């Protein structure tokens, strides 16, 4: 089968597929979408170009020699369930081609796309249509709303195509419109709406058939900055309510950092680096990636979860009424403060050697009496620049928890300063 022809990794790409090191929140999440050695050659016969690329030629050389355009070359990455995976690159880097390969708006020349283990590149048209109707939807840069339909009917478009009857699809579309705050505008036509509202309809259309995977192609790039931020918040809010797997194309680093759980950076059809914003910021793969981050305000990009350091030695598992081992652990590890969590990893409070010793002496050896008052944990999605004062003022490293109260680690002033220094 030519479609799945395996090609050896050219050396330049070998480092790209390295698994991220600090994807704390998603480390255990299952992989939904696997892309393996994906190529797109814009030519009726991709073989000569594939052979050239395989021999180590670059995109420019292939264009020069064969007059054939290479869209994507040897792309491999995993997208995990429930994450926002941002593919970022400058125009011409192949990111728009990449997203269109995933739902086969553009047919891949070679390689595999596995959705839940099922190879999309092998599906017949009919099978693909089933997958598109059930599992995937797409949001477009230019909104791509049908001008002759109202917002409601536009939102219902995917369901109409799938053959859902009129009342059912309108109900579902109405729910989707309400989700994006457009319930009152259901009967307006696209031309009667602003760009931001139109893209909300585009979003509602993508939500209406309740897909598990959403492809967003520069979805907010055509909007002005204020509305863009508003839409990003909207997307993050929707994502909090209902976890979907989102693949988001962007050329805007701030946007990528803001909404991306992980980011893939593309250049010249290749994927240069994949990782969490923090990973990429900390260890850019090459100068191209580094140049992206040159003008970034690190404190606004990084969130508390990125900076928090988890150490097993100062993390104490709460065993009600048993304080002795806690004191022993702190003394032996040399830590003065201990972070207490329950056996489901939920954050309970902070103790110090003194407070534990005091509680033991008081004749009431309970964690409740040992907890230090006045130190609240911060949530992992807060940008670092909002934490500076709290970290500076706290007597101990500030604990960080996720939305479910799970303890992720703590931020000390020295770690914070180091992080800010590295970004500069």
């Amino acid at each position, binding site marked *: 089968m030519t479609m799945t022809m395996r090609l050896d990794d050219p050396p330049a790409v070998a480092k790209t597929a390295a698994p991220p090191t600090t994807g704390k929140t998603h480390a255990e999440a299952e992989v939904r979408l696997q892309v393996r050695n994906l190529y797109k050659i814009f030519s009726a016969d991709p073989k000569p170009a594939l052979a050239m690329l395989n021999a180590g030629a670059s995109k420019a050389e292939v264009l020069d020699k064969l007059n054939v355009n290479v869209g994507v070359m040897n792309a491999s990455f995993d997208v995990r369930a429930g994450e926002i995976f941002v593919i970022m690159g400058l125009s011409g880097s192949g990111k728009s081609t990449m997203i269109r390969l995933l739902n086969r708006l553009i047919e891949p020349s070679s390689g595999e796309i596995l959705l839940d283990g099922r190879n999309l590149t092998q599906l017949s048209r009919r099978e693909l249509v089933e997958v598109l109707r059930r599992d995937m*939807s797409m949001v477009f840069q230019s909104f791509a709303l*049908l001008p002759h339909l109202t917002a409601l009917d536009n939102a219902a478009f995917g369901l109409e195509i799938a053959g859902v009857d009129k009342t059912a699809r309108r109900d579902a579309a109405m729910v989707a419109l309400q989700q994006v705050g457009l319930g009152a505008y259901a009967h307006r036509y696209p031309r009667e709406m602003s760009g931001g509202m139109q893209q909300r309809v585009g979003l509602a259309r993508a939500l209406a058939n309740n897909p598990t995977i959403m492809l967003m192609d520069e979805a907010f790039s055509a909007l002005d900055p204020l509305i863009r931020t508003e839409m990003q918040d909207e997307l993050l809010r929707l994502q909090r309510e209902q976890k979907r797997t989102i693949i988001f194309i962007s050329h805007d680093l701030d946007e990528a950092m803001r909404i991306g759980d992980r980011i893939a950076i593309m250049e010249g059809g290749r994927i240069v680096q994949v990782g969490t914003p923090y990973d990429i910021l900390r260890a850019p793969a090459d100068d191209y990636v580094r140049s992206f981050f040159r003008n970034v305000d690190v404190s606004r990009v990084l969130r508390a979860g990125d900076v928090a350091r988890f150490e097993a030695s100062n993390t104490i598992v709460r065993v009600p009424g048993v304080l002795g081992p806690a004191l022993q652990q702190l003394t032996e590890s040399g830590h003065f403060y201990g972070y207490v969590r329950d056996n489901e990893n939920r954050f309970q409070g902070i103790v110090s050697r003194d407070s534990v010793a005091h509680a033991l002496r008081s004749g009431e050896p309970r964690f409740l009496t040992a907890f230090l008052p006045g130190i609240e944990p911060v949530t992992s999605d807060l940008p670092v620049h909002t934490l500076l004062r709290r970290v500076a003022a706290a007597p101990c490293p500030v604990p960080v928890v996720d939305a479910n109260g799970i303890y992720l680690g703590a931020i000390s002033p020295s770690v914070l300063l180091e992080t800010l220094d590295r970004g500069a």
Partner: protein
Amino acid sequence: MDGKIGIGVWAERLVTFILDHFQPSLDAIAAVVDGFGGGIDAALLGMPAWVLGGVIAALAFWRVGVGFGVFTLGSLGLIYGMGLWEPTASTLGLVLSSTLLSLLVGVPLGIWMAGNRIAEQVGKTLLDFMQTMPAFVYLIPAVMFFGLGRVPGIIATVIFAMPPAVRLTMLGIQQVPGELVEAGRAFGCHPHQLLFKVQLPNAMPSIMAGVNQTMMMALSMIVVASMIGAGGLGNVVLQGIQRLDIGLGFESGLSVVLLAIVLDRITQSFGSVKAPARRFAFLTRLRPAAAR
């Protein structure tokens, strides 16, 4: 014949060949066209003048506006007063039937050409040929194949008037924004759903412009086709020429012009699909305001 290249001879031979071998198909085509044209003709002439005139004026009033409705009523009244109602109604019937036949063939052809490169290249060449060929030339094979009368008139008119329908359908579909087509495909459209739910609705203004053009060309051709006995106002014009009757020529010419204006404005109004939606937009606009 000395030194001449005998293309004319070959054309003649081709016509003879078709006549000899395809007579049954020609008869079938003739029967269909005759039934179609005759049906519409009979329907229009069967109606009392005031009913047909009323319907046309009502259309003008609804689609274009009060002023044009009055103009239409006046024009039709004038035609009736000049005693030319019957040939005008007959011409209208011929125009309608040849326009409908042109669309029946032309729109699917345009759709096909929009999606197929080879069909587009061949089709475009053919359309150029059809449009540059002098209109009268179509009358000759039409007469050869179908004799005199309404049928060859309609067929020659269909050939002459079809190109804009094909061209503008093709153009309309090709000009649907790429992301709209992508959206259709991304949400799992089958090809026919893409055509009927995305491409055709978006190509509608262009297709309606094609309808308008086709109808205008059909009107001009059907007058010429009276030379082979198509009937209608063209016959009256022809009489005027033959008798050098300036009055009759002017009256019939004026009727053609008035009919052309009325048809043009009414079909043009269908080109802006948004018109009716906008007219009732105040109803929908009330809702969000009330909900706020």
